[in-house]
Structure formats: structure tokens, C-alpha cells
């Protein structure tokens, strides 16, 4: 099948539209006949990463690539960055604002969730922005039987 390539803008604090990237990616994966379980893993990863850009950053972009043997999504935002990545990856660690908490975020489980569902995760950050790449390998059993 033809590769699926999309670029999305993610706006800071735009909670009403947060989840759009995950939703469109889910739809594209469905159309390619991937299994519910595989789609769920990708959806969780994309959603959590997307929300983090919305609630923790000044905004950024998501690039989604789906090919025959992988799904890769890269998120790049405009800062302020993550001071201590090791700490940020710990379950329960959160610096979520009261605005984010009121909206149901801030359990400190997003990055651990991403780590759990993805096959590869690359997280880099400076005050100029955070880069997150997550990859899911498509195998024979990733398709609906």
C-alpha cells in the first residue's frame, strides 16, 4: 500500500481539539486493515504525546508516517523543554498546570504509557523544544484476521 504521510499542527492549550492527530491516525490504520489491538497501542501513544504538546509546550507539529512495516510519529514542539528526562519518564511525575489537571491530565502516566505501547521511543529535549519519536513495528499478526 502507498505510504501515508501527514503533518499536523498542534496548538498550545487547545484542549478542545487535542486528540485530532490520534483520531485521524486511528482512522488511517483502520483503513489499512490493522488489528484493533495494534491500533489501540498506536492510538494510546499518539494521544499521550499529542496531549503533552498541548498542555506542556508552546505548540508544535506531529508528523505521521505509515508504511507496510512500521508506523512512526515524530513530535516537535517549540519549548520550554523537559529539564530532566529521566524524571519525566517516571510514573507519577508531573508538572501539569491546574488548567491541565482540571481537564483530567496530570497523572504523570503519559510518557510511561508511550514507553509501554511503543517498540521504539526517542525523547530529546532542550529549552528550544522537545523532540519525541515513537515507532511501532507492523508484523504479520498486526493485521485483522
Amino acid at each position, binding site marked *: 500500500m502507498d505510504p501515508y504521510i501527514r503533518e499536523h499542527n498542534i496548538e498550545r492549550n487547545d*484542549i*478542545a481539539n*487535542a*486528540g485530532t492527530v*490520534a*483520531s485521524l491516525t*486511528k482512522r488511517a490504520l483502520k483503513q489499512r486493515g490493522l488489528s*484493533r489491538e495494534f491500533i*489501540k497501542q498506536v*492510538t*494510546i501513544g499518539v*494521544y*499521550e504525546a499529542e*496531549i503533552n504538546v498541548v498542555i506542556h509546550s508552546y505548540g508544535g507539529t506531529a508528523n505521521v508516517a505509515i508504511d507496510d512495516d512500521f508506523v512512526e510519529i515524530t513530535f516537535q514542539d517549540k519549548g520550554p523543554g523537559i529539564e530532566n528526562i529521566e524524571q519525566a519518564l517516571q510514573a507519577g511525575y508531573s508538572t501539569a498546570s491546574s488548567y491541565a489537571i*482540571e*481537564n*483530567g*491530565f*496530570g*497523572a*504523570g*502516566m*503519559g510518557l510511561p*504509557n508511550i514507553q*509501554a505501547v511503543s517498540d521504539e521511543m526517542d525523547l530529546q529535549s532542550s529549552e528550544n523544544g522537545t523532540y519525541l519519536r515513537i515507532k511501532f513495528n507492523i508484523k504479520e499478526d498486526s493485521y485483522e484476521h
Partner: protein
Amino acid sequence: MNIDVLTTDSRFKAINDSAPDAVISGIFACDMLSHVMGHAAEGNVLVTVLSNINVLGVASLLDLPAIVYPHKIVPNETVIAKANELGIALFSTSLTTAETVILLHELGV
């Protein structure tokens, strides 16, 4: 199990009527969306006090067909309209979260 079990029980007040044929199985109760995202399963009825629009996004992504708001919580019109668009059934109840979960369990959900 059909969503009827909720619709026909007077302790649940249907907020909309957008998923009359929804099939439900299992209960997930939580107010932190990353926990819902990480642990809820397709078909689960979500019990949450969170009445904002993100909950619908999460429910839709995970294929959760129904949300029950305890403590008489009713979401605003924007949220109800979004639920109608996504085909997610919304209910409100005067019960607490724990009581809601127990009742759903007793009803066989």
C-alpha cells in the same frame, strides 16, 4: 450486553439518545485520563466525574460506548453535542462513583 440496562433503570438519567444499540461490557472508573487511556478496554462503561470534552475524545479513541457521570454531574451543551456526533451514550446519576460501579456490577455490566 445492550445499553438498555442503563436506559431502562430509573437510577440512571439518559442525557442523550445517541447510541441506542450500543453494546457494553465491563466497567472502568477513573478521573485521570492517562489511566483511562492506559487501562480501559473497548466496550467499557466509563464512570467519571470529568465532564469536559477530552473525556469524549478518549472514549472515542478507545471505543468506549457509554459514560456515566456520578454526583448528578451533567456536562455542558458542547460536550453533549460532541457525544451525539461521536455516538457515545451519556448518563447522569445521583449516586457516588463507588455506588455507580456497584450498581453497574449488580446489573451484570
